């Protein structure tokens, strides 16, 4: 057989276009400018609304403290995310292998998800040591999207491929490892991307709930502490750091997803125009 029919090959980079970088930065600069002008013209005192210059200065002067706190929060976030990944994928595989387990447990996974973490966090702090409670909170918030997406992925396998594996007499383990898990990978990574942000939120919620209890030293704890002391510039500085951390987590997980899927999945390929 010859290969007369030409292959349409289409791959692209991360698809970065200049307007998509320049425009948000311009918007940000404009926002900061207006913020600064409002603070100056209205002569607003710093304990109500600090100007951007003061926030930046605080970020620099309190850097050592804030950086340590950021590391604590990030450690919780990543531990929570790792546990959520293991738990979510593990549970999804279990559900996929046994209808009985799925029907028994799935409703409770949903209940765990729909109950607001803010309301659960104080209770966790009653029963668990603080560090474990914060981690548990991050886990609870983050694991559901991974579970739901991976379950969907495991159930979305091409029926013909399932038949093909059956014809060749593949065992359940081989079907799982060679067919179902690879097919579920894009879904799983989609869930992970959502879970990354949620894990940070879970960590922050638990830190704030634990805040008055004392021993915490994460960024959210710094925010709570600063609020009691009316140290508004430090609140802003900590908040900015949290935002940056959230964006960085999302970008890192997007990059991971792209690197894993770039050779074969539609989501990572450019459309031909």
């Amino acid at each position: 057989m010859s290969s007369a029919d030409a292959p349409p090959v289409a791959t692209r980079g991360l698809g970065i276009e200049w307007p998509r970088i320049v425009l948000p930065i311009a918007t940000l600069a404009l926002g900061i400018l207006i913020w600064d002008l409002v603070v100056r013209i209205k002569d607003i005192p710093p304990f109500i609304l600090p100007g951007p210059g003061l926030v930046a200065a605080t970020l620099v002067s309190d850097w050592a403290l804030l950086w340590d706190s950021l590391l604590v929060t990030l450690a919780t976030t990543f531990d929570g995310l790792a546990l959520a990944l293991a738990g979510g994928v593990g549970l999804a595989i279990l559900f996929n292998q046994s209808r009985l387990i799925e029907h028994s447990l799935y409703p409770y996974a949903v209940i765990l998800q729909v109950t607001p973490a803010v309301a659960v966090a104080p209770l966790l702090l009653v029963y668990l040591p603080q560090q474990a409670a914060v981690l548990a909170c991050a886990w609870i918030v983050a694991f559901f999207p991974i579970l739901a997406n991976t379950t969907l992925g495991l159930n979305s396998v091409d029926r013909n491929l399932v038949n093909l594996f059956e014809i060749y007499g593949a065992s359940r383990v081989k079907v799982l490892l060679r067919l179902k898990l690879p097919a579920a990978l894009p879904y799983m990574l989609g869930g992970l991307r959502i879970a990354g942000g949620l894990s940070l939120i879970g960590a922050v919620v638990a830190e704030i709930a634990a805040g008055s209890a004392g021993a915490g030293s994460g960024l959210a704890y710094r925010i709570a502490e600063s609020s009691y002391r009316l140290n508004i510039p430090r609140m802003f500085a900590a908040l900015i750091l949290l935002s940056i951390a959230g964006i960085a987590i999302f970008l890192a997980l997007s990059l991971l997803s792209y690197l894993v899927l770039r050779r074969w999945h539609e989501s990572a390929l450019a459309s031909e125009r």
Partner: protein
Amino acid sequence: MTGTRSKTIAMPPTNAPPATSAPVVTLHGVTKRFANGTLALDQIDLTIRSGEFVSLLGPSGCGKSTALRLIAGLGEPTRGGITWSGARSGRRRNGLDVGFVFQEPTLMPWATVFRNVMLPLALEGVDHGVATQRVSQVLERVGLTSFRDAYPRELSGGMKMRVSIARALVTDPPLLLMDEPFAALDEITRFKLNNDLLELWRAVGHTVIFVTHSVFESVYLSNRIVVMTPRPGRVFTEINVDAPYPRDDSFRTSAEYARCCRVASQALSCATEGVP
């Protein structure tokens, strides 16, 4: 119309296998009723002999795909049985004994052409070195050697189908089952793949059961056409196509081809309308 008649079209001498060659698979009164009550197949008797190229021809709903799936071991007949006599080791059929080509290429999008073709050998636990050599041979046979590291997404429809055929052939199965494999392709690609398939069949010498709803395709490819009726699926008649191989594009334009197509076409319309 339940009776099975045989029409033989007088043709010059043939290189088709004699009707006495050993059966590979035999269907005895195979009936399949689905859980929803649909009677898909009703009392199918069919013997496929070694080296034959048999087409199952019929309109959609005649159960031809169901028959093929049963032969492949996907599901059990409600009544009747399938005797398998083509197994290479012992009497039990295993995964290496059939190759199956679906209507869609049905490739794993996350694996390269090479890994896709290697799948049946990997599932059987064939030694990696042996498997690698075998996959290279098959890829060369279907003309895809230079695309071994490409992903399915990067291939055209015709090339994906060739990968699918290579995967079915990689175990060197005595029986190749094809379920409307070229139905979704454009005519030019389909003709080309028809020729390539005949070439492969003549070179390898396996038995082929080919499901199609195209009269032209069935006449061009096969030495026997089994015409089926829809709802419920029954064998209406069998037509032997005695035109000699190799068949090529000149056969497509020959008077014999036209005549065979007319006969098959009439049989198909009788089968569809239920008038013998």
